[in-house]
């Protein structure tokens, strides 16, 4: 009897463990919250040793190397050489998708049944992941953040992203994609405070085959933590406003 109770209790614990995360009114996992990557992926998606500019990292690419076409590999080398000025981040441009997810500033997810709203601290832009059975709009559109349409596969949010402008970089060392990128993201909970984020890149202009990254996103748990707007692009001129003489 005691043994049966113990088994039952253990089973209940395991089952509860499997669903130990919030759900929305629609029953789907609820990713609402403020999230941040500790992966170091923004310093370089591939494995990298430390420099004076960044710490070492084991990389987040499955198989370690991004399968670039030869010409694209040369482009990455040019990007790397010019990175101080050419990285869109240093120009305060919107980081794009997926770089906005794993860069080292947090982002907030607001979730409704019809969509997820991702508000990024860096630049303070908003990306919408539509989950209302809508499709990508017609034509190619040059978006920084792409056009995102998601659906649920069990407990995983699967997001199809196209319509990139091809101007965003993927990290600080010049990894990149073109406007032909087709990104498929898979978002799932490991536990209530940890998201497993996977993204598969398919871009026939740049890579020889699809490739995948995986990073974990951690929930920010500080009391009253909030996204503080970082309109980075205003920093170079905000000294002139509102009126210099009131300073």
């Amino acid at each position: 009897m005691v043994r049966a109770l113990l088994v039952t209790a253990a089973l209940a614990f395991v089952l509860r463990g499997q669903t130990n995360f919030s759900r929305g009114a629609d029953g789907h996992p609820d990713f609402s919250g403020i999230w941040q990557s500790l992966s170091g992926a923004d310093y370089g998606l591939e494995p990298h040793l430390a420099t004076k500019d960044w710490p070492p990292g084991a990389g987040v690419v499955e198989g370690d190397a991004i399968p670039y076409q030869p010409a694209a590999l040369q482009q990455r080398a040019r990007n790397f050489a010019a990175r101080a000025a050419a990285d869109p981040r240093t120009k305060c441009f919107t980081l794009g998708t997926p770089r906005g997810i794993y860069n080292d500033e947090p982002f907030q997810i607001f979730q409704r049944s019809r969509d997820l709203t991702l508000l990024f601290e860096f630049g303070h832009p908003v990306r919408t992941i539509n989950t209302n059975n809508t499709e990508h709009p017609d034509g190619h559109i040059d978006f920084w953040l792409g056009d995102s349409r998601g659906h649920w596969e069990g407990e995983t949010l699967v997001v199809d992203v196209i319509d990139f402008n091809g101007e965003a970089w993927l990290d600080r060392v010049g990894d990149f994609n073109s406007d032909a990128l087709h990104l498929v993201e898979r978002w799932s909970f490991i536990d209530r405070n940890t998201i497993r984020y996977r993204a598969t890149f398919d871009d026939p202009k740049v890579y020889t085959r699809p490739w995948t990254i995986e990073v974990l996103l951690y929930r920010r748990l500080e009391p009253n933590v909030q996204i503080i707007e970082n309109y980075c692009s205003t920093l170079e001129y905000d000294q002139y406003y509102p009126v210099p003489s009131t300073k």
Partner: protein
Amino acid sequence: MKNRLIFLGVLAIAPIVSSGQALRGWRETSFVPAPKGEWTGARLSDGQPDVSGHWSNTIGNHNNLTDPQGPLGADDEAPPQEGRQNARRIKPRNERAPSRVSAPADGQIPFQPWARAKQQEFLKYLNNPIKEEYVEPFARCAPGGPTKSFMWHGYEIRQYPGSVVFLFDSGNRVIYLDGRPHLPTSLKLWNGDSRGHWEGNMLIVDTTNNNSKARLGRSGEFVSENATIAERFIFDPSGDRFTYDATYTDPTVLTRQFTITIPNRRVTDKTPVDDWNNLTFPAKHAGTAPIIEAYERVCVEGNGNHGQVVTASK
């Protein structure tokens, strides 16, 4: 998105062009007050009136704060000339919308004398910004600030238990409803730090931590980083309209408080598309329910002064 950036740049430099286009089918010349009464629409799970969706002001853009459909400066008051691209007919003052400054009664901001002089100086150099400080920050893709953001393109409200989120054409804003304390006072932000609560159909918001770097109009009105804003979003019972009231307190710049009033109306699938107030388009889907959505709002890639905005059309 590049073409939107160019659009913003053109508007910032020559708002005269936009005004004529946008008047069709949308702009109103009086402030239609939101009818009073108990909320009849849907509510969120936490009881908030559901005001989510697309919205726009009904009066005009940020060109002129106190005469929203009037001219701005001597050039703008010149009579239309045949063939001039920016020529438009300006109606007599009594046929135009009133000042957005609803208090004091004279419709003007109660500036201290030095601040009035500074506002006039901004206006004088608006189209000839010989110093950095004369460049209107909005022309550099800066956020519009808590109030002026409602004088620009249509925008979207998204609502959640505990927060209301505004997605503007230039910048975004979160209003927390959960009673949390404000950020430390030393943190000054373009869109401030907002705490709100609902009283019936009215969303009442306390906005502090303002850096006040965004002006209140291209006409040059401004406040200082000591300003606090008491905002009221007064929704009608059906959620078709709301009146935005913002009362500014700022002893650094003002002799007394003032209030800005901006009328707003819901954008639906039936609203005429003018690419200004209504930036939405029908979503592509297999169902029959009308779903409208808007393109991403990103305005940073040509960041710089007026000239650089123009060169962003590469």
